[in-house]
């Protein structure tokens, strides 16, 4: 069995809402797989289905070779879940939380004490071990949450938006922990709203929107489609926008209009591609107020993949079609 997760046309409907609308994915053993999508895309639903908390409306899925419906008990013995909303007990102390879970996982009193001591230390929570979790910072709570998932060694770990709402430093900690987890051999399914996070941590990424996978591949493959970076231009004169789009197209680049008619975003294969474009614009007498180069936002990714933004608003009509190649690149 080479797949940690295998799903086929997985569907979860809540009344008329199709939270998951036919998802087929394969996560290899030992890899970090990133599920990237905006709020409401279906990420948590996917995680809850695969961790046996809910049952699918349609389709099939197996985790480590066990069917999630027929063999739910076997699945549970081999996974750990760190949910989107802190899955630790607020009223208990950090130590009590780990003790409780350790005992439920079959460790004896002494084993449990030695194990939680080790984890509190490694996750840098030892100083707050005897305080109630309700008083923890977001970062500490998250670290405890992940430590709680590692009391015994799972074959597959679900991390549902582990850094949403964290400050940059706490986020860096969670990233470091995730990398170490991956190195220890645990397969990780990570969900996130941040392209950068998926790029940094995941070997392969599926982009999900409205319950469907709209693109899938390695970070490099996705970036080749959407550009590793985005050039944002602010024109001096809004009437130049269409002409600027044509110039970009002449260089093989797809310009996207923004809500502000003076603004254009242009996904680039790499930073060097910006120079010829800027030169060409200057040559044609198109004046710029400002330009910036950076990582594409999730919104830009969605625009590139679907022709609409992450929130699902209608595409802004541009001088040319966005790079709307929506077929899966793999």
């Amino acid at each position: 069995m080479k797949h940690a997760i295998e799903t086929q046309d997985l569907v979860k409907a809540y009344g008329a809402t199709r939270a998951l609308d036919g998802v087929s994915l394969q996560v290899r053993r030992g890899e970090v797989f990133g599920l990237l999508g905006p709020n409401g895309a279906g990420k948590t639903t996917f995680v809850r289905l695969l961790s046996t908390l809910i049952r699918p409306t349609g389709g099939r899925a197996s985790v480590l070779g066990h069917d999630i419906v027929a063999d739910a008990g076997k699945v549970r013995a081999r996974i750990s879940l760190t949910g989107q909303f802190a899955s630790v007990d607020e009223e208990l102390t950090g130590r009590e939380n780990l003790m409780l879970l350790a005992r439920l996982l079959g460790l004896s009193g002494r084993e449990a004490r030695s194990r939680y001591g080790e984890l509190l230390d490694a996750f840098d929570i030892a100083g707050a071990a005897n305080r109630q979790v309700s008083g923890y910072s977001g970062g500490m709570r998250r670290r405890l949450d992940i430590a709680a998932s590692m009391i015994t060694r799972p074959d597959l770990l679900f991390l549902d938006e582990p850094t949403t709402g964290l400050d940059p430093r706490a986020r860096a900690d969670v990233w470091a922990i995730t990398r170490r987890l991956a190195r220890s051999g645990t397969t990780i399914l990570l969900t996130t709203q941040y392209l950068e996070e998926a790029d940094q941590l995941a070997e392969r990424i599926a982009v999900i929107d409205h319950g469907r996978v709209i693109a899938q591949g390695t970070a490099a493959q996705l970036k080749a489609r959407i550009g590793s970076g985005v050039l944002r231009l602010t024109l001096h004169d809004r009437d130049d926008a269409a002409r600027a789009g044509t110039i970009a197209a002449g260089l093989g680049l797809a310009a996207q209009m923004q809500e502000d008619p003076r603004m254009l975003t242009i996904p680039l294969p790499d930073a060097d591609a910006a120079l010829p474009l800027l030169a060409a614009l200057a040559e044609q007498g198109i004046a710029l107020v400002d330009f910036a180069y950076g990582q594409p936002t999730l919104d830009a990714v969605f625009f590139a993949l679907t022709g609409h933004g992450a929130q699902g608003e209608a595409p802004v009509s541009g001088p040319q079609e966005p790079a709307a190649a929506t077929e899966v690149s793999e």
Partner: protein
Amino acid sequence: MSLRESRLDRALGSGARAPSAPRPFADTLVFAWRAVLKIRHNPEQAFDVVVTPVMFTVMFTYLFGGALVGSTEAYLQFLLPGILVQTVMFTSIYTGFTLNQDIKRGVFDRFRAMPIWRPAPLAGAILGDVLRYTASALLVFGVGFLMGYRAEGGAGAFIVALILLNVFALGIGWIFTAVALMVRTPGTVMTLSWLVLMPVTFGSNIYVAPETMPGWLQAFVAVNPVSHITTALRGVLDADPALAAIGLALLTPLAVTAIFGPLSMWLYARERG
């Protein structure tokens, strides 16, 4: 970087494997321990469980004792078994309240994704309840003794009373458990539970003998299960146990368990979105 990566590596590399078979008894005990921890961390609940019954016993005895039966001593003798019932009833509300709170929180998702005995969280909570009922009943007994209460039946009667109280409260508690599994917020559980508890507690023979009540109220008191358990406890503690009264007192909790027990289990096992 506050995290020491070498320690992290060591900790992550050294975890044991999770057990493959759930262990019903051990898992239940862990959840009972969790219930006890929760009480320790929850001063308001401790307040309710400790202060309210003591306050009721003291206040009612000295306030109404003389007027109702002529002397505080005689009234205490009459009142105490009923206060025990009232105490465990009020305590039983927390079962539903805590359960509802738990389910709302992410931690329950974690439990449900673990290889544990599925009813363990519920079973453990019930075991925790037994500890809570027993503790609050012992407390009321203690205060009663200090104020001059005497159980004619002695130590044996005392133990039988504790058992009856637990069976009664655990049985009735299934109603609140079922309610907790059906409504959205812990607050709603509280409100609904009080709505049930208030009339059955005060419309009973706990505080006064029903002879002076209007006929319709007497009729209610006569069929009220709280009256039945109070009557049974008075008999047991006064060394005058009536098997018929005990049987009647146990009828309701057993019937409630038969209906609401399976219902709660079903509600609990049912998938939550």
